[in-house]
């Protein structure tokens, strides 16, 4: 007890006497904690909002969803249920909206609503009341972006398939899903009673039928869902409850914010490196005091604890300051992430996030400081009397291994706290470790090279400046790590974003098809082709599409397979592969976006019945391989097939790609629709062509790929912006570490400047020496960072996104230049004293 008291008392005294400049380094912890608290606090807000708003997101207590009209059995069940509970129906599909007044056309996502939906939450419209008035006539309520796209206004007539509606309002806010579901077109709402008039639910249309129920308070939606789920599974009906929706949404969102949290964690870990480098300098300065304490009877462990407690206290100061800043920063995040968060996030201080942030900051400070502070155990009390002999250095300290282990374990644990998985935590820690190791090795190697091969003929100021990078007790490697890592992170992010967008643009590049015509009925095909020819447009296709479902795999009926997956609970995605509707095609050749990886493609003209080629991920999900048998339900007719080959498909290409391709000779007589691709160069021509098509073939939809591409680009930019925002914190930490390192070697530098000037150097020369040093430090850090970013960017593009890599020279050079500039500016502004102070004044200070 008394020992603990002594340790605390000594730590407090040391803290009191700690040079103010060392507190700069607590700033590095503060920045990391700020980023972490901001993102975690936001995540908590998000989950609160999801919890509060989950019911309005679903709009009901329970929903049943199917890709086909509900079977009589399901309808009977719904009848029974709606006797005691209000119900509503929403039928969703896509179609072409056409405004005759402005001649504008656009693919839209239509929701045909019957009943007083939603039961919870509300759809706000402009003018108010448009939603309740929707059912009162042939009204259509549209997304505001549709008005812009079509040049339309309230009161205009819109035709949708064969039906006409009057625009009665726009949606201001409505609960919706995460992601980019509406990238395929703005949403519109119509009353369900006019649905048949549109004639858009013809053969081949992708329709989603959904029934919503508002249950009496005494009925548990989850219990109800669980009771009917097994029975509904074979009917291919999915049951959703608020609780499940909430869980799914939280899973998705916490993944997103978890990754952002990892980026924040990187800033904090870099702060840890700052703390470690400060500890090295500090312990070196305190070595005499430590020797005396040892003489006076303090054990090595006690001395270690004194300085560890001090480091912890400094980290605490930094963490509290950082947490305060983080609470402020948190208000920025909703704006950054707006657009793909489906709920209204109400910012509130999350004390849990603040506590975790402070705890994390202190932990990082302590585990990073522990390794350098262990050096106190090697300081012999004898050195209070005299310089030690070389043989007196004690053997390697086994505690160093313990400290290193604590460091690694903490990093993995903190990462796991962010992403919720040990595996990903370990991968993160490993990746950060490898990046740091590479930065460290590159910096070390370059310093060695400079020491050996610095040309004698170089001007003095350059040689002196560069020599400063490898003088005793230099902090070059730490600084390259601290500055370089931020730059590396930003560089890698930029490269990944650049290459993703490049790929999007490549596929949408000139001479590539940019308009997809789908839902063409067989009897329309000739007319559509003539239309294209008349307009002088290229025709790519037509590709036949046959909708089908799986009815059995290797003799096991799908109902049984579905029942199995629901029992084993092996994830819904697995059930989905049995339940979903497949839109398959048939052809005799392999297209450029696919590659056969197993088995053999059929020879052209070789009309063997029932052979299929299946996409490799689907094959894995269905657990089928070459020679396996799948029986399909094609509009009620069983079609038996055998897997003849497995393909790898590049889904990123805007081309009609298929999970299942049949050999010719099986599906030619099945009910089918056609897809045709074409290219219309100018946006205006695309508009007028779509309009002509909408007038002549109201059921044929056209998807403008350039619009889809724009929507995707916006999404990528948005995500990249959020990540980059978090990555900037790392760069800030790097700059702070630089300031801290300069401050801790300030006296030495000022003295050297004075000595140089005493020996006859002019102020200008001293200035140039300092400039040379920071210029080379900045160049070193940015060069290493850019090279590593290029490697990492290439690896991500090649292995994660399976695409080609291109290095944008100009932006990366700009990034490197910015890093050099930052280093030089921070370096010079902290070295004014070196140039300014009078030599005599400095030398007298000895």
């Amino acid at each position: 007890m008394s020992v603990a008291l002594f340790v605390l008392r000594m730590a407090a005294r040391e803290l009191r006497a700690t040079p103010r400049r060392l507190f700069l380094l607590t700033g590095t912890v503060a920045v990391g904690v700020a980023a972490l608290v901001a993102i975690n606090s936001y995540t908590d807000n998000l989950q609160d909002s999801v919890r509060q708003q989950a019911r309005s997101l679903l709009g009901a207590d329970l929903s049943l969803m199917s890709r086909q009209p509900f079977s009589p059995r399901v309808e009977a069940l719904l009848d029974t249920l709606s006797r005691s509970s209000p119900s509503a129906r929403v039928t969703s599909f896509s179609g072409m909206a056409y405004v005759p007044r402005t001649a504008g056309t656009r693919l839209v996502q239509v929701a045909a609503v019957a009943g007083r939906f939603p039961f919870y939450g509300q759809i706000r419209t402009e003018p108010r009341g448009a939603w309740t008035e929707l059912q009162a006539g042939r009204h259509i309520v549209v997304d505001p972006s549709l008005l812009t796209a079509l040049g339309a206004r309230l009161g205009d007539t819109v035709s949708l398939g064969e039906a006409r509606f009057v625009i009665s309002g726009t949606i201001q806010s409505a609960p919706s899903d995460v992601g980019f579901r509406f990238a395929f077109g703005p949403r519109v709402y119509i009353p369900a009673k006019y649905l048949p008039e549109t004639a858009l639910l013809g053969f081949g249309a992708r329709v989603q039928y959904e029934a919503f129920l508002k249950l009496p308070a005494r009925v548990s939606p989850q219990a109800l869902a669980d009771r009917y789920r097994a029975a509904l599974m074979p009917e291919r009906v999915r049951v959703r409850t608020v609780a499940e929706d909430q869980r799914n949404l939280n899973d998705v969102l916490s993944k997103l914010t978890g990754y952002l949290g990892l980026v924040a964690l990187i800033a904090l870990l870099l702060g840890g490196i700052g703390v470690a480098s400060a500890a090295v300098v500090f312990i070196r300065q305190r070595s005499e005091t430590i020797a005396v304490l040892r003489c006076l009877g303090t054990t090595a462990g006690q001395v270690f604890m004194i300085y560890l407690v001090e480091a912890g206290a400094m980290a605490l100061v930094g963490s509290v300051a950082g947490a305060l800043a983080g609470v402020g920063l948190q208000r920025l995040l909703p704006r950054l992430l707006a657009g793909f968060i489906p709920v209204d996030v109400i910012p509130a201080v999350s004390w849990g996030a603040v506590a975790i942030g402070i705890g994390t900051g202190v932990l990082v400070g302590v585990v990073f400081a522990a390794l350098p502070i262990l050096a106190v155990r090697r300081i012999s009390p004898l050195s209070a009397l005299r310089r030690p002999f070389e043989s007196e250095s004690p053997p390697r300290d086994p505690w160093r291994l313990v400290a290193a282990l604590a460091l690694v374990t903490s990093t993995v644990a903190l990462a796991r706290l962010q992403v919720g998985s040990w595996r990903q935590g370990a991968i993160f820690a490993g990746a950060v470790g490898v990046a740091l190791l590479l930065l460290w090795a590159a910096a070390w190697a370059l310093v060695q090279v400079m020491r050996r091969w610095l040309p004698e003929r170089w001007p003095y100021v350059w040689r002196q400046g560069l020599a400063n990078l490898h003088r005793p007790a230099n902090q070059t490697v730490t600084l390259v790590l601290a500055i370089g890592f931020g730059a590396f992170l930003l560089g890698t992010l930029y490269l990944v974003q650049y290459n993703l967008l490049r790929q999007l643009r490549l596929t949408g590049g000139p001479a590539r098809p940019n308009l997809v015509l789908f839902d063409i009925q067989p009897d329309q095909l000739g007319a559509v082709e003539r239309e294209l020819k008349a307009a002088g447009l290229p025709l790519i296709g037509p590709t036949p599409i046959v909708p089908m479902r799986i009815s059995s795999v290797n003799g096991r009926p799908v109902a049984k397979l579905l029942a199995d997956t629901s029992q084993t609970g092996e994830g819904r995605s697995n059930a989905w592969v049995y339940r979903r509707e497949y839109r398959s095609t048939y052809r005799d050749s392999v297209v450029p976006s696919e590659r056969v990886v197993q088995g053999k493609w059929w020879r052209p003209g070789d009309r063997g019945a029932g052979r299929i080629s299946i996409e490799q991920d689907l094959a894995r999900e269905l657990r089928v391989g070459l020679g396996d048998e799948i029986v399909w339900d094609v509009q009620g007719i069983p079609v038996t097939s055998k897997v003849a080959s497995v393909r790898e498909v590049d889904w990123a290409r805007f081309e009609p790609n298929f999970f299942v391709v049949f050999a010719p000779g099986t599906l030619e007589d099945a009910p089918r629709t056609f897809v045709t691709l074409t290219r219309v160069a100018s946006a205006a021509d695309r508009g007028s062509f779509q309009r002509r098509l909408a007038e002549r073939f109201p059921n044929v939809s056209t998807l403008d790929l350039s619009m889809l591409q724009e929507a995707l680009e916006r999404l990528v930019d948005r995500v990249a912006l959020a990540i980059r925002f978090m990555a900037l914190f790392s760069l800030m930490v790097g700059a702070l570490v630089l300031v801290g390192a300069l401050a801790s070697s300030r006296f030495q530098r000022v003295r050297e400047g004075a000595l140089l000037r005493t020996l006859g150097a002019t102020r200008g020369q001293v200035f140039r020496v300092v400039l040379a040093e920071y210029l080379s430090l900045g160049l070193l850090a940015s060069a290493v960072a850019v090279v590593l970013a290029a490697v990492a960017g290439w690896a991500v593009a090649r292995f994660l996104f399976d695409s080609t890599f291109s290095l944008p020279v100009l932006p990366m050079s700009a990034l490197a230049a910015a890093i050099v500039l930052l280093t030089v500016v921070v370096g010079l502004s902290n070295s004014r004293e070196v140039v300014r102070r009078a030599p005599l004044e400095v030398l007298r200070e000895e």
Partner: protein
Amino acid sequence: MPEAVLQSQSLSRTYRSGGRDLTVLKDITFSLEPGGFLAILGPSGSGKTTLLGLLAGLDRPSTGSVYLDGQELGLLSEDERARLRGEKIGFVFQAFQLIPTLTAQENVQVPLELRGDANAAPRARELLERVGLGGRGHHYPAQLSGGEQQRVALARGFSSRPRVLFADEPTGNLDAATGATIIDLMVELNRDLGTTLVLVTHDLDLAARARRTIRLADGRVVADTAA
């Protein structure tokens, strides 16, 4: 004769330096009774400081042994020796070695706090009073003169009532007059508290104040006034 407080038996110390073995101390044997005042005298490089380090348990001998209060130091671990130092040994250094970040008062308090003394503060004040620095307890070492710093160090050295106080050239960094007052103080404390003094110096006048003198040359005892 009472039992010896400090005993050195065939003490030798060899270091490796520049790739060769360098024997700094050879076969040192002597014992010292409680309350004694020993001066270890010799030119620089004669092994004085090394001997002091071994006697105070700061270092381990290559061969031979040191007994403090009948306990063999070589058998103790580094931490056990640290605890022993805290309880039974005091130090005064040539360069004072006050902890620059602590006030005079706190410097004196450290050994007392280390052993959990509840009266550390009043006891430290009393000791500072004793060395004539009553009103200066709140000053930092940098705010004190060399002589004042050494007096603080003396108060610290005696604060835990050690069995033995080791002083390494305690007047080396002081002018003659100040040095003399420091030695006066040491002798006074030695007398009043019964602490055994071991003084290392190359100053003959200083050594003359001791009751016993051991002279070292080339790591060997060449003269011992008690012999």
